């Protein structure tokens, strides 16, 4: 996810989680005992579309692989990769120093990467809040650095993601007379569940007001941008997130089914709904295990809740999991649940879908907008979540048919397609702004 209002970690997530309760070896042991019932299938080849006009985009982002904590980093990486495959060039601007995953066609710029240009901010680039809740000086100086960044003559547009670089990006766009495109992945209202940090909110407002086009990752988020940020609807374009087509995971059926939540343990994720639904399912499906994979500030509360509901022996808190562990979990899970109160898109649901795991999401999540092959439930409706889980666990035909359907839907959501849609947003503004120059 986008950097959170509280304290965002600029470094890679910790490799060892403090809440991990199952070891990698144990997970693999589970994997070895499984019955293979459906063959894995290869991922289809990705088509390449070469652009007729080659653009140079300055992308003001946040994290970039290998440092990734959420959807924003994945989005930026996949977008850069597809844009350069199409023949476009990207200069990626980030507050963090590398090394970054090498991506042909992408040049990285971060404070310190070009010491004679601009003014590098002092000290670390951690985004922290000051005593009165204002964003600390380091962020302001980062934006000053972005604003002063010398741009090559051939830059066609500046594309900024979320709030932390909006002020600098907007100022650079004005100074160089290039159009500004802003992608909103989530808003401060969402991340704070209605108690926004006003300084962050101000930077979001600044960005969407200055942008010639605002890209929203879902229709639901677009509505919010119109209603709460007063962005004119004709300036907003919806470009959904996507998923990298991976090989289909072998689907495993065991008498003791696993229901999976995989994501950050933040209040906006609604994991308490997952646990309350589990308590409703267990009387009907007593051998089910509910796995919570992920780490976050809600962990202590969720652990207490599981105990309070009397289901602690059916809930497994795994803590933060590696990519390999995630693959094992997705292969083993019968159902994936994303019960978020707020979920601007929900890439993790797409990842479950492409692995062929029948998926239940809350109606507010963007992923519910792109397919009818998931169950979409009101985030507050615990009984409905419980019913959908129990239905998928109880009816094998439903599970099999939805497994096929979600994978097909996810494979239709490719980054190549999203990059093409993003380019057409660039092209909407590149020519008119150039004409003004």
């Amino acid at each position: 996810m986008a950097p959170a209002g509280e304290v965002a970690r600029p470094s890679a997530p910790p490799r060892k989680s403090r809440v991990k309760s199952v070891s990698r070896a144990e997970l693999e042991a589970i994997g070895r005992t499984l019955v293979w019932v459906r063959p894995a299938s290869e991922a289809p080849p990705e088509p390449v579309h070469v652009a007729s006009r080659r653009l140079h985009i300055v992308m003001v982002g946040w994290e970039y692989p290998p440092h990734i904590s959420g959807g924003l980093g994945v989005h930026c990486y996949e977008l850069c990769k597809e844009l350069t495959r199409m023949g476009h060039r990207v200069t990626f601007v980030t507050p963090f120093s590398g090394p970054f995953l090498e991506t042909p066609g992408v040049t990285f710029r971060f404070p310190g990467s070009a010491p004679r240009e601009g003014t590098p901010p002092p000290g670390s680039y951690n985004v922290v809040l000051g005593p009165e809740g204002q964003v600390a000086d380091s962020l302001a100086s980062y934006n000053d650095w972005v604003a002063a960044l010398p741009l090559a003559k051939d830059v066609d547009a500046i594309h900024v993601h979320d709030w932390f670089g909006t002020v600098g990006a907007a100022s650079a766009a004005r100074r160089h007379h290039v159009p500004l495109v802003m992608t909103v992945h989530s808003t401060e209202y969402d991340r704070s569940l209605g108690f926004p940090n006003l300084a962050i909110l101000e930077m979001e407002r600044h960005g969407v007001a200055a942008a010639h086009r605002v890209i929203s990752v879902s229709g639901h988020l677009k509505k919010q941008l119109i209603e709460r940020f007063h962005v004119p609807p004709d300036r907003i374009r919806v470009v959904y997130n996507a998923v990298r087509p991976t090989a289909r995971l072998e689907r495993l059926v065991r008498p003791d089914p696993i229901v999976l939540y995989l994501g950050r343990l933040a209040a906006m994720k609604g994991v308490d709904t997952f646990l309350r639904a589990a308590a409703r399912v267990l009387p009907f499906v007593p051998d089910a295990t509910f796995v919570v994979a992920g780490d976050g500030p809600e962990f202590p509360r969720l652990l207490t809740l599981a105990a309070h509901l009397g289901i602690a022996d059916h809930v497994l808190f795994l803590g933060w999991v590696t990519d390999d562990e995630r693959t094992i979990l997705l292969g083993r899970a019968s159902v994936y649940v994303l019960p978020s109160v707020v979920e601007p898109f929900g890439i993790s649901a797409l990842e479950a879908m492409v692995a062929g795991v029948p998926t239940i999401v809350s109606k507010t999540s963007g992923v519910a907008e792109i397919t009818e092959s998931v169950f979409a439930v009101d985030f507050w409706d615990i009984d409905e979540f419980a019913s959908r889980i129990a239905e998928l666990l109880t009816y094998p035909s439903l599970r099999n048919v939805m497994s096929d359907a979600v994978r097909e839907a996810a494979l239709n959501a490719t980054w190549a397609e999203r990059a093409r849609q993003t380019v057409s947003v660039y092209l909407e503004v590149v020519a008119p702004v150039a004409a003004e120059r």
Partner: protein
Amino acid sequence: MKLVFYMHMHQPWRLARFRYVDLGSGRPYVDHERNLAIFRRIAERCYRPALGRLLDALDRFPEFRFSLSVTGTFLEQARLAAPDVLGLLKRAAATGRVAFLAETYYHSLSFLLPPPELTEEINLHVSALHDEFDVKPSMLRMTELAYSDELGYFAERHGFKGMLAEGWEATLGDRSPNEVYSGARAPNLKLLLRNYRLSDDVGFRFSARGWSEYPLTAEKYARWLAATPGRVLGLFMDFETFGEHHDVSTGILDFLAALPRFVDRETTLSWATVDEAASEPAQGPLAVPTTMTWADQNRDLGAWLGNDLQRSAFEAAKKMGSLARRSGDPEILTTWRRLMTSDHFYYMYLGAHGADMGVHQYFSSYGSPYDAYANYMNALTDLRRRALEAAGVRAPA
């Protein structure tokens, strides 16, 4: 040329959302109010105005005739939601120029179930028609115009004079659909065939602005009918064609009102009920080895039993039949039969491609086929538990 104008009237008992956590709660499976609200809306848009025009035509044109099939679940809902619609149907029956057909009371696929379910359902329907309209049907139609040699044999053995079927090239070969045939295994059973092109001109294409013949007037249509070679022409369609599938604003009700007048002007055309048409001699037997319906591009049962969800739901329901009988509780048997109504399986159709999907979504009351399946299975699972209890069998833990 004899015109056989036949319309089908049906409304299913749609299920309420019955969640998995509702198992054992005693909540009803059917949302009566919602079903009756839908019925009232369609009565307003279609049943009343269309029947009004048909009754008017019966008054004005002594030669005008038509035929109807009215399912048992339609009669149940009409009694509760719009009794005046039954009054209009009674007036039509009283003219003696409107034939009623027998079918399965619940609009079910019970011809795929072990006996005696099919016979019992038809008997239920025949006696309901008798009680309501004082008629005794001599012709039979199966759900969605399903027909096969096997079904023809069944109908003849049960004393029916004839059945309706689709006039489909795959079975007709180069023979005309506008003739009367006999069953391949039932030499005394007459088959009346649907001319699907002329029927669908009204049923599907009437309001299609992109159609080269748009707009279709009654005058033009009557000319087409008169120009069609053959002796018996089957115009078979849903009754809801007139005001529901095509809104009144398309002019469909004016078309219905004007048709008898323009047919009257064509000297080669006359009207016949299904009973009258079945008195015509047969042009030889028509072999239909596998079940043929009037639905979708394939004219088979694919719309109801084409995918794993549909087959698994139908098999689960089928398996429950003997238990429903054994329970000895008439309410459980009735509920099971309501769950056998074919519409429930139609809602689980998955084929997301081609012209048929639009038709399926139009008729569905669910968000998705997965919704439809899960909800249906929950209701069935709950009913099985109740039936086991009633039959004195302890439910497996």
